[in-house]
């Protein structure tokens, strides 16, 4: 079971360790800087973090296992705009910047190749590194796909790739979640891509377009490592499940709300998943001021609201898409919120303890796999 996690926040990267009985903040890296994402790499112990400096752009840093100092590595970069051409516009006519605005996904690529990474960005570029971030290559097959130009901004102004799922059976099989642009999958390591969001439904477009797989605002996409044909999506207007390798998706009815950003799936039981709901798109606050985690153990037929240890009145915490994580045992979960709370459970969500309710806004939480 994991005994360490990192929380990437608006004001730094927080390292949180488990002592004999309690989890506490042990160290803060990049204090004062905007840490948008963190990846503790289970293969070699390297920790990667993405920083978003308001003035100076986005950067990637890594901390090698045993090292005391972070190193700045290369920043994924979009290709030069052809001379004499104007920046592209989205389907709404808005100019899409041709520079990386945000690093929105960082994942280990090939379990057998330490240092191989996938990185998703806003705007919607997918990058690959095979040298631990020292260099990045844009995945041109996806970038140049005609349908990519139809992606649109969701919660952010510009479209982006926030989820990258590498299939445990074959690292050449990769799926990415796009807000807004559906699910895209490759089975040849990124040489070719196809849409994989059939069955998703969008309630923010005219009815005849609701089932268009390209218009789907996927908030978070996860795959069960132990049952890799089992997938979950927290979508802009619903929760969806696939039991056939993301070939088809089925919507679930969820109380008290199916709106939210985050989802995690149990590492071995594909029918067990957790969500942190908000009221609705229009009211991004907990339902009735109560923070809950929704858990299903039966593939989404039923959900139970987990509340033990969570505030049940006058609470306004929202959890972003990377703000919920589960460890490799499937017993320990953690989630961080926009109002700086961070809760951990060691019993699959039956009870929660606050690590802090005074952190900066939390963007991402990731457990470190025990060596």
């Amino acid at each position, binding site marked *: 079971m994991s005994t360490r996690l990192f929380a990437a926040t608006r004001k730094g990267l927080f390292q949180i360790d488990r002592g004999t009985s309690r989890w506490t903040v042990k160290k803060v890296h990049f204090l004062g800087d905007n840490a948008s994402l963190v990846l503790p790499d289970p293969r070699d112990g390297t920790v990667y973090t993405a920083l978003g400096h*308001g003035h100076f752009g986005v950067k990637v840093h890594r901390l090698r296992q045993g090292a005391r100092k972070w190193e700045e590595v290369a*920043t994924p970069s979009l290709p030069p705009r052809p001379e004499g051409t104007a920046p592209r516009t989205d389907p709404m006519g808005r100019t899409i910047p041709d*520079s990386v605005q945000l690093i929105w996904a960082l994942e280990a690529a090939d379990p057998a190749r330490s240092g191989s990474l996938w990185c998703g960005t806003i705007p919607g570029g997918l990058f690959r590194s095979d040298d631990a971030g020292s260099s990045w290559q844009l995945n041109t097959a996806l970038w140049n796909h005609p349908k990519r130009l139809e992606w649109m901004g969701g919660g952010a102004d510009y479209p982006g790739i926030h989820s990258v799922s590498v299939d445990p059976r074959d690292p050449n099989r990769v799926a990415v979640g796009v807000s807004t642009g559906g699910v895209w999958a490759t089975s040849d390591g990124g040489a070719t891509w196809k849409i994989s969001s059939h069955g998703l439904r969008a309630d923010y477009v005219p009815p005849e377009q609701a089932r268009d797989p390209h218009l789907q605002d996927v908030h978070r996409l996860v795959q069960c490592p132990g049952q890799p044909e089992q997938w979950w999506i927290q979508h802009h207007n619903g929760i969806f499940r696939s039991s056939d390798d993301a070939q088809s998706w089925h919507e679930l009815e969820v109380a008290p709300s199916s709106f939210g950003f985050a989802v995690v799936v149990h590492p071995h039981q594909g029918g067990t998943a957790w969500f942190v709901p908000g009221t609705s798109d229009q009211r991004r606050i907990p339902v009735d001021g109560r923070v809950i985690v929704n858990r299903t153990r039966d593939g989404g037929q039923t959900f139970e609201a987990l509340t033990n240890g969570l505030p049940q009145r006058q609470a306004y915490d929202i959890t972003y898409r990377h703000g919920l994580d589960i460890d490799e045992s499937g017993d320990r979960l953690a989630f961080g919120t926009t109002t700086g709370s961070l809760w951990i459970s060691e019993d699959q969500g039956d009870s929660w303890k606050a690590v802090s309710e005074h952190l900066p806004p939390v963007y991402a939480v990731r457990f470190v796999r025990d060596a």
Partner: protein
Amino acid sequence: MATVHFTETIQRHVPCPPSTVGGTTVREVLDAVFDANPRARGYVLDEQHELRKHMAIFIDGRMIRDRTGLSDPVGADAEVYVMQALSGG
């Protein structure tokens, strides 16, 4: 030769001491600075080699106009200041 000064706030991330370099445009002057300090380039310019949205450059007290082409002329003995814009928060 122009003298290029950098905002104090950048120094925490990448040291940028004042430097005196040749060049007749902002682009030429910055290229000369960044050739000697490559890591600083990405903090000031984006991957299209344009001035980042929330950065500003002043030449002898006047803000440059061409943020994309960086073609504003730089006179001999000019004082160039690379600053953060207030718009970045």
